[in-house]
């Protein structure tokens, strides 16, 4: 309500009071109060709205507190699980591989030795005593081959089974992704409510800071796609 009109109303009120016109004076007082009441109601309305918003924010804050207090540490534990599980799988696989490599080298050496002797035998260059030794070697070699076949099967199965980490860690990682997604949504909501604008706020990263493996396919021109790219880049630098 404009001040001039309130001033007019006030002057009219004074005049009415001076003339002793009680009815008119009461009407004018009510009129004046009406305007104030209206803005007062508006203010109370705004405050109520703000209170409501604040309460909503607090509710969301408590969800964030829950996420920060229990779900993020839980996510950390899950990711630690992934590291441990994958590490165990690699060691399990490598143990099986190392044993097989040693056995296959032994087998190869045995076969080479026997074929040399066998070649001499077929050409009739072998004395009877030597042939007896060869028979003994062949028997032992056959035992070795048999053992190698059994071990191979066992170790290959072991390697096969060690791959189960992918399923387990995949599930765990998916859970962590869900938590991260929720944190992101809550943060975006909070920023909106607090009146901030979402823009490109990602910090410019130092170009050569270590950041680990590139995850997923990338069209980033700053990242090499494969070893050939690395070699091209290095040769362009005189390597």
């Amino acid at each position, binding site marked *: 309500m404009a001040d001039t009109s309130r001033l007019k109303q006030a002057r009219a009120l004074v005049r009415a009071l001076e003339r002793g016109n009680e009815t008119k004076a009461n009407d004018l007082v009510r009129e004046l109060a009406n305007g104030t009441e209206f803005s007062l109601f508006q203010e109370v309305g705004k405050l109520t709205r703000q209170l409501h918003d604040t309460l909503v924010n607090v509710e969301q804050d408590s969800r964030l507190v829950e996420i920060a207090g229990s779900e993020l540490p839980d996510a950390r534990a899950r990711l630690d699980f992934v590291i441990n599980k*994958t*590490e165990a799988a*690699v*060691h399990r696989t*490598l143990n099986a*591989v*190392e044993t097989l*490599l040693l056995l296959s080298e032994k087998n190869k050496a045995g076969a080479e030795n026997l074929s040399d002797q066998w070649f001499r035998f077929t050409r009739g260059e072998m004395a009877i005593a030597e042939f007896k030794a060869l028979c003994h070697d062949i028997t032992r070699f056959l035992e070795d081959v048999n053992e190698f076949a059994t071990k191979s099967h066992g170790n290959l199965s072991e390697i096969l089974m060690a791959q189960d980490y992918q399923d387990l860690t995949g599930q765990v990682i998916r859970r962590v992704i869900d938590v991260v997604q929720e944190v992101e949504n809550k943060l975006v909501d909070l920023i909106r409510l607090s009146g901030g604008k979402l823009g490109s706020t990602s910090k410019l990263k130092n*170009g*050569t800071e*270590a*950041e*680990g*493996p*590139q995850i997923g396919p990338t069209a980033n021109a*700053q*990242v*090499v796609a*494969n*070893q050939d790219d*690395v070699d091209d*880049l*290095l040769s362009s*630098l005189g*390597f």
Partner: protein
Amino acid sequence: MNKDMKILIVDDFSTMRRIIKNLLRDLGFTNTHEADDGTTALPMLQGGNYDFLITDWNMPGMQGIDLLKAVRADAKLFGLPVLMVTAEAKKDQIVVAAQAGVNGYIVKPFTAEILSEKINKIFERLAATA
């Protein structure tokens, strides 16, 4: 190339050290030793008469790039051939490694053939300049 040369493998993941160690054994290199970051690797290099260094980049403690720079700045170690085997795949990083004096750069994941090829290349080039 001397198959008995003393090689130090630096990576914070024991699994990756094991894989590289096994690949090297397959190539005939059996004199391999391990360290889990630059901080442990540098004193080993200084006191160990190593012939070849294979290092990761991203490690807690001293990173591979800093280890490389420390090696090049060390009066005794500066000529040591260094091969970087890392998941760091940004062009800027490769340039920085090249400027710091790396002899070879392999991006993970890699194959046994690539490792063999890079090692051969490094020692061929060293033999040519020697």
